[in-house]
């Protein structure tokens, strides 16, 4: 699969539109899901997805194959979303982990939240972009720590730390929302 995608990128670099279409079909869903999970705006996410593949068309010839095609494409998407956040001048940061709440209780709440996609979406939306990116790549795309680190351009330890904080924030948020609903 990976070699096939590498070949497709080479073909795109030579101006092969059909190869670009094949690459689009292979990566559209995961890349779009990654983008929309960070923006919460399907229209803007569609525009950025488009920009990602236009960039692939423009720069495929310079792809040297030192990284996997998947990490290369997600890396482009990662930076595009950072740029979109800058344009919005949006600051969505919830980096402080509240002290209240018990992990075991939150874990139960997290288990219950399996059926609660709405709560999960809401709580993902409260995370900073860095946290959300790490969670999205780890749990939507099932990437290794090394792959996520390469995409974000940071050491693996940073990714583990981001995921650790994101997990605490998510569990706390889910716990609060589900407890709130139970009391209502």
């Amino acid at each position, binding site marked *: 699969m990976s070699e096939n995608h590498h070949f497709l990128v080479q073909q795109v670099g030579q101006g092969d539109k059909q190869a670009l279409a094949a690459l689009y079909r292979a990566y559209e869903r995961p890349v779009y899901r990654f983008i929309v999970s960070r923006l919460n705006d399907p229209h803007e996410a569609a525009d950025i997805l*488009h920009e990602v593949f236009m960039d692939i*068309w*423009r720069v495929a010839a310079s792809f040297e194959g030192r990284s996997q095609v998947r990490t290369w494409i997600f890396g482009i998407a990662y930076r595009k979303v*950072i740029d979109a956040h800058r344009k919005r001048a949006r600051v969505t940061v919830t980096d402080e982990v509240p002290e209240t709440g018990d992990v*075991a209780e939150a874990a*139960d709440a997290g*288990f219950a939240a399996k059926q609660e996609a709405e709560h999960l979406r809401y709580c993902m939306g409260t995370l900073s972009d860095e946290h959300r990116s790490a969670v999205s790549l780890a749990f939507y795309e099932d990437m290794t720590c090394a792959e996520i680190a390469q995409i974000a351009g940071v050491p693996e330890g940073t990714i583990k730390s981001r995921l650790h904080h994101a997990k605490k924030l998510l569990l706390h948020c889910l716990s609060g929302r589900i407890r709130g609903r139970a009391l209502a």
Partner: protein
Amino acid sequence: MTRSRDEIELDLPFLVNGTLDAEARAEIEAALAEDPHLAAEHEALAAIRSGMQAEDTKTPGEFGLARLMRDVDRQTARAADHRADAGGARRGVAPFRSRTTLWQAVAAVAVLGIVAQSYFLRPATNLEVNVAPAGYVLAGSEERGALLVGFAAGATEAAIRGLLLDAELEIVAGPSALGLYRLDVLDGADVETATGLLRSAEGIVESVENVRN
């Protein structure tokens, strides 16, 4: 056990998504069996992942692909025009952008034929060498921008804008696929001073390269 409990906790997401190697997986699974707190965290992470995986995402699909193909065609056509323009400019003839302008140009040549021929066939003067017609970009012409800059992921647009104003810089191209911008100094500003300001702006600027040096 070779790793601490904290290190094991940091690896839980990768146990959940199945990307750990067999040795690490066995080590963490053994720790989970002995530590109910870790086991609860693992269960919670697995539930979060399941919830995310179960989400149905509606993508742009074939509409998105059609839009992509349309814009690729447009860009390819523009690039072909550009090459034709540049080729024409190098040969000292007028660039043609469409059939209409082609025929207009042919008509003009019919009227001005002798004058035009005598102009284009004469040897170029020193002044004309290396001078491209206004509005055309010659192939191989130098890219704009003295500095190649990467901004920090957390830098806001306001912070970047303030820095660029201080350093008397403007963005002339980018971001590239690698997220890099080309910057140039405003008229009368000093590129070395600007470079120094960028390099001292920790938290905003990640990398600076003077591509003119």
